[in-house]
């Protein structure tokens, strides 16, 4: 007779399956209807088509918005990962007072609603006379992405023996060379994971972009704008399906890289 600790639990398994269905079935309707030959989202499905995807391909503003999102995403992911590396190193390697409070403050944007940050930044920037542009969107995204970068990188820095860095110093390398020859290669999987994750978050982000976008829309802003036109809706679905797929792929990749690195270290 096995104990309750490792005995399979039927009701719990059923609950887990139901949970996943409720969570992801609505999302699955998006790609489903994006292949439907009708501008109305309703059953029964009409015939299969890829014309909405073809229409996307030829539309100039889609490409512009996509390019804007990619630019912001790349810059934000690099800056937030660099800042994340510096923060994670400082948190794990230095003796300082108020470390716990500092970590809490860095992680705070995870729980503060984006709308509050968005409004606050909008008020501040307009007071300062800063025009809204992709730069202001990037600033907003940086606030949102930084805690994710730190949360991804902290376990990497915590996970390795500080005496490995001391060994490098002992063998004659200064701080800069020790970082490049030891610290950086050892936290590399964390850096890749952080880049992928923060890029995805920035790419998909809507609330900050809603408050801080100037004349150049990001892709989510463009989608929002298109929702006013019912006949555009199927191509919005097609675009959403694509974003969904790329986001899933990037997050899985980030997870896989992060885990692989941890296994190598063990």
């Amino acid at each position: 007779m096995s104990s309750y600790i490792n005995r399979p639990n039927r009701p719990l398994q059923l609950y887990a399956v139901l949970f996943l269905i409720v969570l992801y079935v609505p999302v699955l309707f998006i790609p489903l209807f994006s292949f439907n030959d009708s501008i109305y989202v309703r059953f029964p499905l009409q015939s299969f088509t890829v014309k909405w995807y073809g229409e996307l391909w030829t539309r100039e503003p889609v490409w512009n918005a996509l390019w804007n999102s990619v630019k912001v995403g790349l810059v934000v992911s690099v800056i937030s990962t660099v800042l994340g590396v510096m923060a994670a190193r400082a948190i794990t390697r230095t003796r300082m007072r108020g470390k716990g409070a500092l970590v809490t403050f860095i992680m705070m944007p995870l729980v503060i609603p984006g709308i509050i940050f968005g409004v606050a930044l909008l008020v501040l920037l307009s007071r300062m006379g800063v025009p809204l542009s992709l730069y202001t969107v990037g600033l907003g995204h940086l606030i949102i992405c930084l805690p994710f970068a730190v949360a991804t990188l902290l376990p990497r820095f915590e996970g390795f023996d500080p005496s490995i860095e001391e060994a490098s110093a002992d063998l004659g390398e200064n701080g800069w060379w020790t970082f490049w020859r030891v610290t950086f290669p050892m936290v590399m999987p964390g850096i890749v994971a952080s880049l992928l994750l923060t890029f995805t978050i920035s790419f998909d982000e809507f609330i900050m972009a809603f408050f801080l976008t100037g004349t150049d829309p990001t892709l989510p802003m463009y989608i929002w704008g298109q929702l006013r036109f019912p006949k555009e809706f199927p191509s919005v679905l097609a675009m959403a399906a694509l974003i969904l797929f790329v986001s899933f792929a990037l997050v899985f990749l980030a997870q896989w890289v992060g885990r692989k690195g941890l296994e190598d270290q063990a």
Partner: protein
Amino acid sequence: MTPADRFISIRNVSKSFGAFRAIDEISMDIRQGEFFSLLGASGCGKTTLLRMLAGFESPTTGEIFIDDQPMSDVPPHHRPVNMVFQSYAIFPHLNVRDNIAYGLRKQKLTPARRAEMVEDMLDLIKLPGYGNRKANELSGGQRQRIALARALILRPKVLLLDEPLGALDKQLREQMQLELRALQRQVGITFVFVTHDQEEALTLSDRIAVMSGGRVLQVDTPAALYEAPRTREVASFIGTMNFFRGIVRRNGSGMAAIEAEGLGTIPMPTARLTKPEGAPVQIGLRPEKFSLSPVRPDIGLAVEGRLRTAAYMGERSQYYLSLPGKAEPVAVSAPNTHRQRDAQDVPEGQVLWLSWAPEAIVILDTD
């Protein structure tokens, strides 16, 4: 003192972490080319002292000189010392060859010369052909050797070793002790070795500093520490010691003696006993310095004791006897030179004669 006698010179060094005084006014010298051990229980400050030699901690007060150079303003990466870490700290993302060659970057060697030096090191640590192994394919003993090679390839003036054998199992540890000793003789580099294992320190070292509470209690050769410990603390840290309280007795003709609890009056050469008549002294006798016999021996000093317990330990047996006038039992160790299967059958309560030579008595400083 010749310079070689104070190759490493530690002068009035103290180290505080907040209110905690980890190192308390230590002054001592380490000779060039010797195998020097810092021995003490955990928390005695031995690792802190080693880390100060490496430069990872700086003294709160005092100065450390290595080869006549003051070290306070020299960061770890510029010191002429290398360290073998307790965890070995092998770089996990590099193979064995790149681990060993890690410190050679600044020497601007040709690839051929570098490869040759690495191969020489692999031969020295008896791991030839291991260059391409990954760090996670190595056993504990192999990691320990790679950590040694990585440090020795730079020909440091001093090699620091932080309990490098602590993580190995007993058999491997004993083998590595022998190899480490041979290696030190071969390369001739000054080794400073931190350990809490007194047997290991005795086996390996030319000299040992016994540490406790951030202080150095005694610096001496293994034999001197064992046979002539200065204080009770040192005596009980190294091996086992029976302690007896006593009183100095002198007579007019210059003869001296110690009247010790349980042992009676023991005559002493006046040269060994400087204290005046009636002064309290503390003396020690190692368990193996006693002889046991069922009848009173013809010569030497002897007292009668009653056997409390006996423990058979293979090559020797340990007996505990109570002596009249002494509260704690006295430990006696006797080699089992004959195959006396019934050695452990000496019945408890049996009366035995304990004898010893007066030269075996250690007179300790009263604290």
